[in-house]
């Protein structure tokens, strides 16, 4: 059975939860508010902790619920289909060339470059974290929640779609866009 040590929460998990909140909201002030709400809720409901998960997992799940509430309140997850449709042409044009052929192929300026043989090593080093963060922070606000949830929440696409109230096809379009944007951004900032 896992137990809670509320007096140590802030010291043990404060910065970790704050980092998750900053990554997911891209806003330090919002993240601070969410952290405060998370710890206050956790204190309030600490008796409902059953001990079947770790203290860390329990706190992260409270934070994630607060973040989803925030997304809803800010309409970040709303009108995803309209957003993707409205931005489809502009987005495609920045990566793919639709004029030359009837089908979309990589435009010259967006074609992936060679990353070199040291890429694997470099990409798992701590210095690389800052470049990742910079690129994550540049993602469009409607793209960030899905991208971060995919990599940080350890949930499958079906669960994320349900939580966010988005369709599976929108989910994959967002993942695809996020990947294209991240790839280009990483290449620009590090190659």
């Amino acid at each position: 059975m896992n137990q809670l040590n509320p007096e140590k929460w802030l010291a043990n998990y404060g910065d970790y939860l704050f980092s998750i909140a900053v990554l997911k909201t891209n806003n330090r002030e919002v993240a601070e508010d969410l952290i405060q709400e998370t710890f206050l809720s956790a204190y309030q409901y600490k008796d409902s902790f059953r001990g079947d998960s770790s203290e860390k997992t329990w706190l992260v799940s409270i934070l994630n619920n607060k973040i989803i509430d925030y997304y809803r309140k800010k309409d970040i997850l709303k009108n995803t289909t309209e957003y993707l449709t409205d931005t489809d042409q502009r987005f495609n044009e920045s990566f793919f060339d639709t004029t030359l052929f009837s089908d979309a192929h990589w435009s010259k300026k967006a074609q992936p470059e060679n990353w070199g043989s040291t890429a694997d090593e470099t990409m798992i080093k701590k210095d690389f974290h800052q470049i990742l963060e910079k690129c994550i922070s540049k993602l469009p606000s409607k793209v960030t929640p899905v991208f971060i949830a995919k990599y940080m929440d350890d949930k499958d696409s079906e669960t994320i779609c349900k939580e966010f109230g988005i369709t599976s096809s929108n989910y994959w379009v967002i993942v695809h866009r996020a990947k294209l944007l991240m790839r280009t951004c990483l290449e620009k900032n590090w190659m």
Partner: protein
Amino acid sequence: MKLLKNISFSCKDATLLSEMAKEVNLSPVKRFKLFMHLSYCKHCQKFVEQSKRIDVAMKKYNEDLFETPSYRLSSEFKEELQKKLDNGL
């Protein structure tokens, strides 16, 4: 040209499907088209390979986040919140 379109698809579709293929079972037709496309398109080959590297880097980033949090709360914020929590205990 039409025949070519029927047996192949665009780089846009190929990159999208290559992301989906990591988690979803694609239909045999789509799988075959993706395989065909990747067999000749150097750009998409690079994308797929680099995308995998990004997956690995994000996984590592997530694993390291607890030990080395990227963002830190200010000490003023922590002190104030700790006071609030102590009062609530």
